[in-house]
């Protein structure tokens, strides 16, 4: 039963990672921009939702407020900074978005202080349900899984069956041609960046009640999202989905079970130290292994 429970936790974490890495993948795949400030958008989503929840108390409004704040910030960032970086090399993009992180993080700690905000579970989702005899699972985490899967499905439909999706796919591989056909590429980029920001914000909103909302929360998950993107294959949203699930499962399972495993093999304190070290790097080991086997990731898109 505990295995099943941890599996579900892994899926839930994987879905949060997917929302992050899908945005990164879209922005990189279509616009060729590497956006380190993606984690800041996650943080903005989490803060906005936490503030709305604290002052108004409505779960729905908190959700909307969080994703709206992230999307608007994303569009503003695209308009002011990222727009000027499309033609520049990746180094400039990395550095400019690194500077954005410094600004946004410091701005957040000036506005809201260094103390983490704690967000209470929405009342309707705070209980747990019995999935199987002996397995009670928190409703909130189930809701996250359902929400994430439906967002993934929606994203899939959007990319494969709509006009915007068609342009997005075409823009990823044949940017010049799309431009030559008279598509307003500038506006398309703004829309895609806003969509990526929205997904990051959504990830931040749903992570709020599970982890504390604090300055710097975005960077930890940003790096994991990078790992996911590398595992899944750059530029492939489908790859990001499977990569995120794999990473979420490996991370959660190793945190849950490595300690037990090592305790069987060796003395207590050694086992604990080794297990905590191994479980925090397990996700990176997974990445190294995938790279050894497939240097371009599991489902490589455009490289």
């Amino acid at each position, binding site marked *: 039963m505990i295995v099943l429970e941890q599996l579900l936790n892994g899926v839930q974490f994987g879905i949060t990672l997917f929302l992050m890495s899908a945005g990164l993948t879209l922005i990189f795949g279509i616009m060729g921009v590497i956006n380190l400030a993606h984690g800041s958008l996650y943080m903005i989503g989490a803060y906005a939702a936490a503030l709305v929840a604290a002052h108004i108390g409505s779960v729905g409004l908190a959700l909307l407020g969080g994703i709206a704040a992230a999307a608007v910030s994303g569009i503003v960032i695209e308009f002011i900074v990222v727009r000027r970086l499309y033609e520049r090399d990746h180094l400039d993009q*990395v*550095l400019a978005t690194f*500077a954005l992180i*410094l600004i946004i993080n410091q701005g957040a700690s*000036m506005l809201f202080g260094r103390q983490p905000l704690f967000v209470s579970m929405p009342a309707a989702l705070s209980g747990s349900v019995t999935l199987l005899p002996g397995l009670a699972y928190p409703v909130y985490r189930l809701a996250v899984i359902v929400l994430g899967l439906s967002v993934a499905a929606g994203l899939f439909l959007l990319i494969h069956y709509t006009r915007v999706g068609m342009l997005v796919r075409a823009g990823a591989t044949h940017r010049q041609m799309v431009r030559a056909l008279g598509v307003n590429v500038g506006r398309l980029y703004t829309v895609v960046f806003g969509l990526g920001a929205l997904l990051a914000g959504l990830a931040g909103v749903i992570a709020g009640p599970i982890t504390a909302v604090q300055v710097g929360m975005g*960077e930890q998950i940003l*790096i994991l999202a990078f790992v996911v993107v590398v595992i899944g294959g750059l530029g492939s949203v489908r790859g990001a989905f499977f990569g995120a699930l794999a990473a979420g499962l490996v991370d959660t399972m190793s945190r849950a079970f490595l300690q037990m495993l090592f305790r069987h093999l060796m003395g207590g304190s050694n086992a604990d130290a080794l297990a905590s070290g191994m479980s925090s790097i397990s996700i990176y080991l997974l990445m190294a292994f995938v*790279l050894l086997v497939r240097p371009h990731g599991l489902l490589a898109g455009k490289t």
Partner: protein
Amino acid sequence: MTSDSLETRAAERMSSILTSRIGMMLVAVAALLALPALVAVFNVPSVVGLATQMLIYAIAAISLNLVLGYGGMVTFGHAAFFGLGGYTVGILYQHFADNSAFLGLVPGSDSLLIAIAAAMLVSAIGAAVIGSLSLRTSGVPFIMITLAFAQMVFFLFVSLKAYGGDDGLMMRRRDVMPFFNARGDTNYYYLCLVAAACWFVLTACIVRSRFGFVLSGLRQNERRMAAIGVAPYRYRLVAFVIAGAGAGLAGALMANYLRFVSPDMMHWTKSGELMMMVILGGAGTLAGPLLGAAAMVLLETLLAAQTENWQLYMGCILLAIVMLTRGGLATLFSRLSGIRS
């Protein structure tokens, strides 16, 4: 105008560039040598420490520039090697202090020369391992992978409770050297100056050697170099390992300067700062990383003295520099002084 006079004009221009360059370098070297004396005259002792940090970061930035500026490999994990070098010094010192051995095999040491050599070796080995995996990719995956590996090293040291974990490792005193007292701050400054000068000259030799030209060639046009018969992977890996060793040297010096190492040394924001130094000063130029490191350390110190929220201003300044300048301070300097490279 005849071609003859064109040639003489070109030759004159070349020689004037050379003399003004050599002149600038001589002034810089003289200023660096005289710094402790000047500090004593103007009674601002904290400047020596500041200059020491600038020199140490300059070594790390110069080494990063070899891969980033000359090799075109945008690595976002350079701080990992900086931290590995620092921890090598810290761990050796701890085993020296409690008279035990690392893994029961390697005895500790408080000799600066041994510690630095070990740090460079460990960092080089780390770079060989990480580089051999990361260099299977290029471009953006390379950026992300180096970042992820650095993060892996970071978490490894955070979880190493035997060596301080999160809190880091203190050294009670600086390492010792035969015939030279490295414990005094002024002496330590000169030590770092010599190390930085050596690393600078070494890098200058490397980039002007056949190896350096191949490295630059690979940055400019990999396919053409491959057609000539150059194996890109090997050249890049060697450059990556040299850069790792340089960061290890800087890390070892920093550990001795602060008498403290912590996982912060290899935090990914440190990698970002090192990249900033290189780009700020001018990637792919020899003097650029020196200028960049000096500017960055100065900027941080000045801003942090002014306001608690210095990162906000730092971010704005960096953003402005990235957005507005191309080629960093080195280009700006040579433009101002009328020299074009």
